[in-house]
C-alpha cells in the first residue's frame, strides 16, 4: 500500500487515451492502475476513469457495445456505492449508453471531426473533478471528437438544468457563453454533466492531455487534483 490514491483506468479494445490518463494520474501524484474491459475486477481502486478512444470501433453507436463489457457491471456497482467515476470523451459516451448519466452524444453539428483547444466554464463544485474548484472558473483543455454533441430529451434536459447537473459548458476565455465557442452544437453548450448523487461525471474535453506544462496548457491539472483528493478521501475516510 503506497498510501497514494489509486485511480483505475479501463482499457477497452479501441481505447486510445488510457495511457495518457494513467500518466496524468501519476503526474499529479496518484497511482494509476490499469484495468481491463474483460475483467470483473476493479483491483480495489479508489476512483475509475473510462478513457477516450473508439471502443469496439464505435460500431452501432459510440459506447453502445462497451457498456456491456464485463468490467462495466463492476463500474456500475462501484458507482452505486458512491465511488468516483469519470468518463472522458468515449468514456462519457459509454456512461450515457450505460444509463449512469442522462442524455446521449451524437454527431457534431458541422459533421466534421473537431480537434482543438477550447475553454470550459466550471458550473458546479459537486463532481469528482471539480471538488477543489468554484463555479465560474474557466479552464483551457482540448477536444477531439466527431460525435460530441450532447443532446437529451426535453424532460432530461429540464432535469439536468433544474438540478444543476451541468458540470462544464463551452465558453469564451472570459467565461461568457456564445454559439461560436460551442465546438459541436451541444445543447446549452454542455461539455460535461454529473449524476444526481454527484459521484459520476462525464465530459467531452480531455483533461488528461492538459496536465504537463511541457506540452501545452494545464487546464486539466485542477481537475485531476480534485479527482485525487476525492479518491484520497476514500482511502482515509
Amino acid at each position, binding site marked *: 500500500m503506497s498510501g497514494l490514491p489509486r485511480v483505475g483506468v479501463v482499457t477497452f479494445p479501441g481505447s486510445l487515451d488510457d495511457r495518457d490518463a494513467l500518466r496524468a494520474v501519476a503526474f499529479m501524484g496518484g497511482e494509476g492502475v490499469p484495468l481491463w474491459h474483460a475483467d470483473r475486477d476493479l483491483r480495489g481502486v479508489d476512483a475509475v476513469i473510462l478513457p477516450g478512444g473508439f471502443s469496439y470501433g464505435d460500431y452501432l453507436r459510440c459506447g453502445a457495445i462497451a457498456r*456491456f463489457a464485463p468490467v462495466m457491471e463492476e463500474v456500475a456497482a462501484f458507482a452505486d456505492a458512491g465511488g468516483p467515476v469519470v468518463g472522458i470523451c468515449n468514456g462519457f459516451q459509454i456512461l450515457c449508453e450505460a444509463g449512469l448519466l*442522462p442524455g446521449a452524444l451524437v454527431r457534431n453539428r458541422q459533421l466534421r471531426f473537431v480537434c482543438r483547444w477550447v475553454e470550459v466554464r466550471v458550473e458546479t463544485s459537486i463532481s469528482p473533478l471539480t471538488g477543489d474548484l468554484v463555479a465560474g472558473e474557466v479552464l483551457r483543455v482540448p477536444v477531439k471528437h466527431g460525435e460530441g454533441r450532447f*443532446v437529451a430529451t426535453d424532460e432530461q434536459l429540464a432535469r439536468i438544468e433544474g438540478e444543476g447537473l451541468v458540470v462544464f459548458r463551452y465558453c469564451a476565455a472570459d467565461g461568457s457563453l456564445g454559439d461560436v465557442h460551442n465546438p459541436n452544437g451541444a445543447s446549452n453548450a454542455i461539455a460535461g454533466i454529473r449524476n444526481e448523487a454527484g459521484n459520476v461525471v462525464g465530459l467531452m474535453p480531455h483533461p488528461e492531455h492538459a496536465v504537463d506544462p511541457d506540452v501545452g496548457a494545464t487546464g486539466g491539472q485542477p481537475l485531476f487534483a480534485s479527482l485525487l483528493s476525492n479518491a484520497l478521501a476514500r482511502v482515509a475516510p
Partner: protein
Amino acid sequence: MRYRAQVVVSLKDGLLDPQGKAVEGSLPALGWTNVSGVRVGRYVQLDLEADGADAAEDQVRRMAERLLSNPVIETFDVVDISERDGA
C-alpha cells in the same frame, strides 16, 4: 422456426441530422432540386430461432430497445419478420 427480422432505426424527429443535411445538400448538384427532409438512419437485419412470429417479434423488439437503438435519440421500426425457407 427460423425467422429473418428487418429493423430500421431512425433519429428522432426534431433532432438535427447533419448526415441527412449533407446528403440533402449534395442532391441538387446531381440535378435533383426537389428533395427535402433527408434523414439518415440505420438498417439491421438478423435471423433468429423462435416459437412463432409473435415470439420472434417480441424478442426483436426487446433487442431493439436494449441495444439496436438508443431511446434517448432514436426510434425503431420492425419493418418485417418472415419465416426463412429451409430452416
